[in-house]
């Protein structure tokens, strides 16, 4: 398995991309760093990151002026990874690179001093003096650069001589001196490059600290903007998601003046089967569980009132709408591949969170149900932490079962399709092997499907029940 980076996660889950795009990052280098963020599986590393977030949230709230001053400076920080790599490789930087470095380090120094005034321990910015004294030898703190006279007495002398030759109109002498100056500047740059190369580690750790600071402050802003929370790390394998919501859908609903109904669920190391009507939010539920788990394991706050996360090695999603066309497989073919990957990972003993949306729904219902039931049984045997949704009859499955509550008992007359959501309860309740509810026809009828078609379907359903009783 490849090392999972954030850039892979945003390709896999649209909700993840949405969250990252909402991050109010200030500094230009942060995005590059962000894409390479690693998947955290170590509880200690996750707790360290959430501890930082907690400090940052307090910092933003209690020291808003300081935070604003830092944000302003982070915003001016440019992406100089090319320059840093060039210096780290032992190359001689040119004046433009030295300017970039000086510009960045004056900002770093400002930020470091501002951070030192804070009571919070968000991020420690390393000492800036060793680099600044090289780039700002006259300690003017002006963000401009050239090869200063004070770098080299020989250079300073040549520059004085060229000025005299120019004043006296000695063209040939002037040109000769210019060549010598250019040569000497190269020597000075080489020396400066060597001195900076010796500070490579400090250069990189300072830039990383600045980027981490930008990132953690952006997370703190997101917590406030989206009502996110910092998850606790569970060490007993149990994941509890209390009042979880999907920020992207919540924002869409808010635009229409509607509210997102939060959902709670607990997962242990066994499959949970979710049943419920169409439009009951089952797919959204799976994607939101995936989102919460991924955000937490990349060290981000999560969209839930409260969450306890048990880290896993991998989140594996199997849903009908993934890009099977790209692989040239039929939707069933693509699904088979994904399910097989989940089972293979489980057999290897990998801790995975498997989120499977309506397995085997695209094939014939007899075999489909047999396959879905077998899948749940195998997931139970292999003790895979998983959530499986289905429209097949839940009472034939052997595992923990939950059901989307669904329609309120009394529906108003002339319910419009847009208003259906208002009379629908998206919360989950334990499903104790009750008989399957037939909400599909109700939903179809509410959506305005042809009446005769609905009536015929209803008759078919009744006929089948009678056959069964016989």
């Amino acid at each position: 398995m490849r090392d999972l980076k954030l850039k892979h996660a945003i390709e896999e889950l649209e909700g993840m991309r949405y969250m990252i795009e909402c991050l109010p990052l200030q500094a230009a280098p942060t995005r590059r760093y962000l894409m390479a963020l690693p998947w955290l599986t170590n509880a200690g590393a996750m707790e360290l990151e959430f501890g930082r977030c907690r400090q940052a949230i307090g910092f933003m709230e209690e020291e808003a002026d300081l935070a604003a001053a830092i944000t302003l400076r982070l915003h001016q920080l440019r992406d100089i990874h090319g320059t840093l790599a060039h210096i780290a490789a032992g190359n001689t930087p040119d004046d433009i690179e030295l300017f970039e470095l000086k510009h960045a380090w004056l900002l770093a120094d400002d930020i470091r001093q501002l951070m030192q005034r804070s009571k919070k321990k968000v991020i420690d910015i390393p000492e800036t003096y060793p680099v600044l004294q090289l780039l700002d030898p006259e300690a003017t703190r002006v963000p401009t650069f050239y090869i200063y006279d004070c770098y080299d007495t020989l250079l300073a002398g040549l520059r004085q001589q060229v000025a005299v030759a120019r004043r006296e109109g000695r063209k040939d002498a002037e040109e000769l001196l210019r060549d010598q100056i250019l040569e000497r500047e190269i020597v000075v740059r080489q020396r400066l490059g060597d001195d900076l190369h010796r500070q490579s580690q400090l250069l990189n750790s300072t830039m990383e600290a600045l980027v981490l600071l930008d990132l953690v402050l952006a997370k703190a802003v997101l917590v406030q903007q989206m009502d996110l929370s910092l998850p606790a790390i569970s060490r007993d394998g149990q994941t509890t998601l209390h009042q979880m919501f999907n920020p992207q859908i919540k924002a869409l609903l808010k635009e229409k003046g509607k509210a997102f109904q939060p959902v709670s669920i607990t997962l242990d190391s066994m499959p949970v089967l979710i049943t419920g009507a169409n439009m009951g939010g089952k797919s959204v539920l799976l994607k939101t569980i995936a989102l919460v788990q991924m955000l937490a394991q990349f060290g981000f706050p999560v969209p839930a009132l409260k969450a306890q996360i048990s880290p896993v090695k991998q989140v594996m999603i199997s849903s009908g709408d993934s890009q099977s066309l790209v692989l040239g497989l039929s939707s069933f073919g693509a699904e088979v591949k994904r399910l097989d990957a989940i089972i293979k990972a489980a057999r290897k003993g990998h801790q995975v969170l498997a989120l499977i949306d309506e397995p085997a729904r695209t094939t014939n219902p007899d075999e489909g149900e047999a396959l879905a039931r077998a899948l749940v049984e195998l997931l139970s045997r292999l003790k895979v932490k998983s959530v499986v949704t289905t429209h097949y009859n839940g009472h034939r499955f052997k595992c923990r079962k939950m059901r989307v509550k669904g329609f309120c008992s009394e529906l108003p007359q002339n319910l419009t399709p847009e208003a259906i959501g208002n009379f629908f309860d998206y919360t989950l309740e334990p499903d104790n092997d009750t008989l399957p509810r037939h909400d599909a026809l109700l939903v179809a009828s509410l959506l305005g499907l042809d009446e005769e078609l609905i009536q015929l379907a209803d008759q078919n359903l009744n006929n089948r029940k009678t056959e069964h009783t016989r």
Partner: protein
Amino acid sequence: MPFTGDILNYRSVAVVGTAKNTGKTECLNYIIRQLQSRPVTLAITSVGIDGESCDQVTRTPKPEIDIYSKMVFVTSETHFRQRRFTAEILDVSGRSTSLGRLVTARALEPGKVLLSGPSDTGSLAHALMQLRRHGVDLTLVDGALSRKSLGSPTVTDAMILNTGAAFSANMPTLVRKTKFICDLIALPAVHSTTREALRLMETLCAVNSQGRITDLGTTSVMGLDKSLPGFLQHGTTLFVPGAVTDKLLQHLIMQKEVKQIRLIVRDFTRIFASQETVQSFLNRGGKMEVLYNTKLIALCINPTAPDGTLMNSDALRDALSEKTSLPVWDIKKLALQSCAT
């Protein structure tokens, strides 16, 4: 000193030429020399010049601009590295041109530099703003009047036009063609509210007498002969986002409402129609306006051309001055005079 005093009334002045070898670089170098002793912070950059150090047409090396101590200049990374004098870097732009990012620097001693500044109008406007933040009083812009150029020098406050024997070897023709360009530069600008409304439009638009804008949904004037009468029902003011060609104007001339038609062009550099067609459109009662205009403050002449053509400088100056009512200067003569004094 002639006309350099005038220049100081503006924050930015573009220097453009009607053709190659009309003396643009000499003109820039002359202005720079004259302003050297003035207590102003001067900056120089270019727009829409592709920045090749060798001229693509004549294969002659591109001229370098004289920079004096304390002067600010904006050029690409590539050309910045080629300089042979000490300069303090003030800023490096985020955006990149084909020759790298733009470097803003202050010369710490005199020298020469190849200019390759912003490539498009928006970047030029941004650079002009940034230069003010660096304490620059006046920015000179080496501009191109080329149809291939994405950068129009019309975002500057004022303009100096260079013309000469290289534009036309026949004096009456030269005067007539130069006068035409002067007229285009002098086209009136639309009201600022109209400009704001049309600035970002990239399609043909009609504006009615109430100022209502209708997006006509096309960028091209192909097949315009058939659709034009329909378009004009939405308003007789037409905004053309791209080039104004002979064909477009000929279609307009043929409309019975030609007297009511007001054509809005982005700026004068977008007018590629011939003088005859433009004149015919205006004579029939049509009007032309621009979103951006600039003030033409002087003409500079070069009476010689590389092919050996030599005109009488005084006669050319008088003829142009009479036709355009603008101050006209022969830069070479001025330079000689200032050397003599």
